[in-house]
C-alpha cells in the first residue's frame, strides 16, 4: 500500500507548494506535512503530499549495512 517515492525539493512556491524532482520528472506537491523541508532536501511523496523527510546519513548507513552483508557473503 501507499505508493510513495523519495524526491528532491528543487523550488519552494506559494504557500506550502513546492516543485520536486524524481529521475528527471518534475511535479508540484504540498509540503504542508513537512514544514521543515527546504530546497535540496529529499522528501517522501505520497498522493501529491510530502509525508516525511529522508535522512541522507541514515540512507548511507543502511547502504553500508548491505555492503557488510556482501563482505560476509564472500
Amino acid at each position: 500500500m501507499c505508493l510513495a517515492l523519495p524526491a528532491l525539493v528543487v523550488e519552494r512556491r506559494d504557500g506550502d507548494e513546492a516543485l520536486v524532482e524524481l529521475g528527471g520528472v518534475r511535479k508540484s506537491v504540498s509540503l504542508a506535512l513537512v514544514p521543515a523541508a527546504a530546497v535540496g532536501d529529499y522528501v517522501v511523496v505520497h498522493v501529491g503530499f510530502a509525508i516525511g523527510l529522508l535522512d541522507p546519513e541514515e540512507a548511507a548507513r543502511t547502504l553500508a549495512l548491505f555492503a557488510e552483508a556482501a563482505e560476509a557473503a564472500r
Partner: protein
Amino acid sequence: MKTDYQRPIDWRQGRVDLNHGAGGRAAAQLVDELFARAFDNEWLRQGDDGAALPAPPPGHRLVMATDGHVISPLFFPGGDIGGLAVHGTVNDVAMLGATPLYLAASFILEEGFALAELKTIVESMAAAAREAGVAIVTGDTKVVERGKGDGVFITTTGVGALPPGRAIGGANARPGDVVLLSGTIGEHGVAVLSQRESLEFETRIVSDTAALNGLVAAMLAAVPEGAVRTLRDPTRGGVATTLNEIARQSGVGLHLDEAAIPMQAQVAAACELLGLDPLYVANEGKLLAVAASEHAEALLAAMRAHPRGRDAAIIGRVVADERRFVQMTTRLGGRRIVDWLSGEQLPRIC
C-alpha cells in the same frame, strides 16, 4: 479544380456543423479544400467514391488491416490523433512483413469541433503518410451532434503487398528463438497520461508515435527469408500483453531479462510516480521481433543502424512451455511471471 462555393472556409473561427456531413456543398467544400488538398494524389484527384488501384505483382498477396483511433487528448506531446491514425495502421500492415501502400480514412467529427484543429490533424496525417510512403486514396466524413463524439474519431484501413514466400506471424515463434525490442518502452502511454488533468508533470515525455515500415524493411533485408518469425507492435497493453499474445499463438513460453529492456529514466520515474508497470504501458513506435537465434546479431545490427531502432536490444528467448507463460528474471535477480493485463491500467496510490 475550379470551386464555385459562395464563401471561403473560415479556418480561424469556423466550427464543424451538421452541414459538413450532409453531403451537400459544405461537405464537398470541406473535402476539396481540406482533405483532397492535404492528401493529394492521383487517385483522390479522380474524385470518385472509391479508388481503382494497381494490383501488386504476381505472386504477391494483399495484406489489409484496420484500426479505429479514439484518444484523449487529441493533441499530446510528440503527436496528435492524425499522425497516430496513420502510424497505427501502417504498422499493423508492416508487422506482417508487407509493404504498406494505400490507406483509407474515415472521420467521425463532432458538431462544434474547431476547423482549425481539424486542419492541423489532417495536415499531420498527410505528413505522416508522406513520410511512411503511403497514399491516402479514399475516405469518408460524417458529423455527429454535439455531445455524441469526442471531437474527432478516425478509422484508417491499410492495404499492403506481401512478397511470395514470406510468412511472418504471431504463431511462428519456436523454442530457441530470441526476442528483440526496437527501443525504449512506455513513452506514448506516459506522454498521454501526463497530459490528463491532475497527473500533470512539468517534464515533457514525448510520444514515440512513428511509422515502422522503414525499420521492418531494413530488418528483413538484413537476414534470410524465414529468420524473422514474428513482428508485432506493442501498443495497448504494452510489451507484456503483446508477448503473452505471441506465447499463446505460438504455444511457447518466453523468458525475459528485465535488465535488457530499454527505458528512458523519465519514463521509469513517471511510472513509479503513477504506480504503473511500464511493461503494460502503450507504445506507438516500437516493435517486438522474434527471430532465429543464429540471425539475431545481424538483425540487431540492422535495427540499430536504423533511426527507429537505435536503442534496439535482445530482451529474451523463446522456451518450450506448454503453459505458455511469459517469465522474467528481474533486475534484482528474482523471477516472476509477466501476466496478461487485467483491465485498464489505472494510476494507483497504493
